[in-house]
């Protein structure tokens, strides 16, 4: 059962990596990274049970808590860039 689930997760990981490499826009890549993150959380939970050491779920918990910070940082990054562009167009 866990094996089937991890297989599904693996296939999805491959699909996400293809999307991350293919693009075309940068947002597609961010989306793929984010999806890859949740898939990693799932994989870690499944593998923790597969190995019979469920006390290692801390790892999945860590990812679940902090993985979305990088996406927020991406939003911040583009907001900053846009406001910088606005200022430079105002000056000229």
């Amino acid at each position, binding site marked *: 059962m866990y094996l089937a689930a991890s297989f599904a997760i693996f296939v999805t990981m491959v699909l996400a990596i293809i999307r991350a490499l293919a693009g075309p826009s940068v947002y597609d890549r961010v989306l793929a990274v984010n999806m890859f993150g949740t898939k990693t959380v799932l994989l870690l939970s499944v593998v923790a049970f597969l*190995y019979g*050491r469920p*006390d*290692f779920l801390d790892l999945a918990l860590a990812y679940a808590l902090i993985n979305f910070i990088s996406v927020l940082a991406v939003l911040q990054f583009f907001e900053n860039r846009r406001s910088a562009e606005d200022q430079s167009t105002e000056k000229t």
Partner: protein
Amino acid sequence: MELLGLYNYWVFAVLLMVGFYAVIAKTNMIKKLLGLSIFQGAVFLLYITMDKVEGGTAPIIQKGVDAVYSNPLPQVLILTAIVVGISTTALGLALVVRIFEAYGTIEEDETQRLDLEE
């Protein structure tokens, strides 16, 4: 099957050299830094590969369970190295930022050209 046990080391070799290629062939400094962190990752992988023991589990001792444990020593070395790695990458990034502010470019050959022109 016997050879598959070496796969980790082959991936280590390839990753090491992919990172190295970025460091020596790319002129963009951020790219060089990313190559360096790939290089770093390859070394981490080599160490962690060595800690694995067949049928073992992570070296957190369970009382009353007769288990085989992996080697803790490489894990300790790499655990600290990861945090050191991100701090040194940040240091490199700071250098690149200052180089950009001084030269207006982060391409290595252009900064060299600007140096020669002076």
